[in-house]
């Protein structure tokens, strides 16, 4: 990470200058804040609004904010939010249909007023997730205009992770904890008993331009070395790991494994994992009409393969049982996703583990199938 464009070392004041510079350029700045006892992503204008001195404790079905014994601004792992809610919002109005002259339909696109977002503190796993959603939603004949507009306008201030959570496993998914590409600027928080500053490096022309406006000091070898240490320490502290094996083959060779029944006993089919997952992209269409029956608006909203009517075709759902829905989710995420998009659908952020009300851990499920697999039995 030493040779990415220009670099500098900035203080907390410098960080404020960054927020100001982005706001001046017309960006809506969004970053981590404490709300409802969790770290969420919300509008941000002052450095003081960042979760200084907070960290989190995460495990299967468990999330608690705790005080740190320092004033780190980014000393926690990812929370329930992801950048997906801004780039691929939970609800998007698509078009409006109006009945004119009794029976003639007229269609009009719904105005899509997406702000230009600047995201502060995009972690490596989250950058990987954005890259995956780019592939899903932009790289074919029918690039989604709503996602593309938001994505192309977004300014990404990435973050090299200084804290691994109890459910983090980006290291074993090769997505983190160090940020490698796809950002405009990247921060590394450098904090010791005397000093609190950030190594900031550019990854785009616009990033370099903004960086040049910030008050800062020259980044030295010592700073780069300290930044490397931060990432290496984080790498050693991952709370989870994904088994190193050919996971697509493992899962697709074990589609009738007894473990699917086992996990179905625990899974509530609540869809939390798909809502917090930064790569899950499924949506449904919703039509709402006015009381007079003259206009109807079609919108799309997040949907989940855990919902009963997700697979409905005339007569019933294809996947009625929880067993089949969990298998659908996990085999898509970890196996067939690779066939479709050339990458796993999992980035190792751990959200699905933390926010599962019963603490189902997909790394554990993979390990259980791996430990008792019946390879090759498939026709």
């Amino acid at each position, binding site marked *: 990470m030493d040779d990415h464009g220009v670099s500098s070392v900035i203080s907390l004041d410098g960080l404020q200058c960054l927020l100001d510079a982005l706001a001046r350029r017309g960006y809506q700045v969004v970053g981590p804040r404490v709300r409802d006892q969790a770290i969420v992503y919300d509008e941000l204008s002052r450095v003081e609004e960042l979760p200084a001195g907070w960290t989190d404790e995460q495990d299967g079905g468990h999330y608690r904010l705790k005080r740190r014994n320092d004033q780190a601004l980014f000393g926690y792992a990812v929370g329930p939010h992801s950048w997906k809610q801004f780039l691929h919002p939970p609800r998007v109005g*698509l078009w409006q249909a109006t009945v004119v002259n009794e029976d003639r*339909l007229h269609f009009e696109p719904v105005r899509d007023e997406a702000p230009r977002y600047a995201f502060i503190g995009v972690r490596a796993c989250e950058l990987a997730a954005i890259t995956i959603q780019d592939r899903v939603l932009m790289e074919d004949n029918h690039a989604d205009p709503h996602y593309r507009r938001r994505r192309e306008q977004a300014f990404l201030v990435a973050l090299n992770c200084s804290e691994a959570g109890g459910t983090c496993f980006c290291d074993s998914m090769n997505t983190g904890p160090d940020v490698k590409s796809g950002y405009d600027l990247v921060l590394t928080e450098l904090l010791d008993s005397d000093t609190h500053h950030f190594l900031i490096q550019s990854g785009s022309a616009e990033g370099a331009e903004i960086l040049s406006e910030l008050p800062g000091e020259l980044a030295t070898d010592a700073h780069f070395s300290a930044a490397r240490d931060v990432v290496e320490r984080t790498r050693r502290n991952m709370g989870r790991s994904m088994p190193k094996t050919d996971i697509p083959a493992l899962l697709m060779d074990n589609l009738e494994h007894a473990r699917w029944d086992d996990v179905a006993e625990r899974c509530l089919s609540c869809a939390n994992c798909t809502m917090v997952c930064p790569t899950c992209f499924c949506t449904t269409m919703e039509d709402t009409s006015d009381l007079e029956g003259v206009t109807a608006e079609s919108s799309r909203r997040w949907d989940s393969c855990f919902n009963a009517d997700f*697979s409905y075709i*005339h007569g019933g759902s294809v996947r009625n049982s929880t067993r089949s829905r969990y298998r659908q989710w996990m085999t898509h995420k970890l196996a067939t996703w690779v066939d479709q998009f050339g990458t796993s659908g999992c980035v190792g952020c751990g959200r699905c583990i933390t926010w599962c009300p019963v603490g189902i851990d997909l790394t554990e499920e993979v390990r259980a199938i791996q430990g008792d697999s019946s390879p090759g039995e498939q026709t």
Partner: protein
Amino acid sequence: MNSPDAWMPEPVRVLRRKQELETTWTLELEPGQASKGAFAPGQFNMLYVFGVGEIPISLSGDPGQTDRLVHTVRAVGPASRQLATLRPMATVGLRGPFGTGWPLAAAEGSDLLIIAGGLGLAPLRPAIYHVLNNRERYGRVVLLYGTRSPDDILFREQLDAWNRLPDFDVHITVDHAGSDWIGKVGVVPALVPTLAFDPEDTVAMVCGPEIMMRFTASALRDAGVDDQSIYLSMERNMKCALGHCGHCQFGSTFVCKDGPVLSFDRLRGLLSLKEF
């Protein structure tokens, strides 16, 4: 259809509505600016009913007749029931056509087995029109059609007319029938071994309920037809038809854009799985 907003339908008029069976109707629609032009047999459109929503419906008409878009709909859900009530001059929204078609070009020179179950004859009918319009390009052509009862036989007059053609074999079977039925009784897959065709040089196109397709594909394999020469038209829930809503994901495919017509070698391991 690479318009900037592939999510937005185009209004099209109903030209004609015809009742085919008790709950099955054929709608002929006037193509709009975006939807006029050719479609590939096997493709589908998304039809929008005001205030209700969109559903995928296969094209069931003659691909050579470009002045109308023909869809055959069974009225079973909120949107399809509404579609079945539409009178001429009413408007619906339309997006499409979407998806892959039957392998009609690749099948030239080969024998064809066209195998339909129930309403599955509708997505196959454009392929039959194409074959009849270009009869010299194909070898022996057999249509095998099964329904639950004689009352469920779709396009009956057409089937009779096709059966009278010297170079087009039509076999119809029903699951159960009264004493007035003089035709075959039994399921479609059971008839496959009785047909005369060269398995080495046959392309099979199959559309019907999933269980019927699964057993038919199995019977075709037993008869010596290659997996790559067996094509099925898959059905899954679809919301967008663009590969983005995720509903129709089936193994490594999105049925809406990689299908609906898929060769059996891509489906084999998954079709036999319950609830996949």
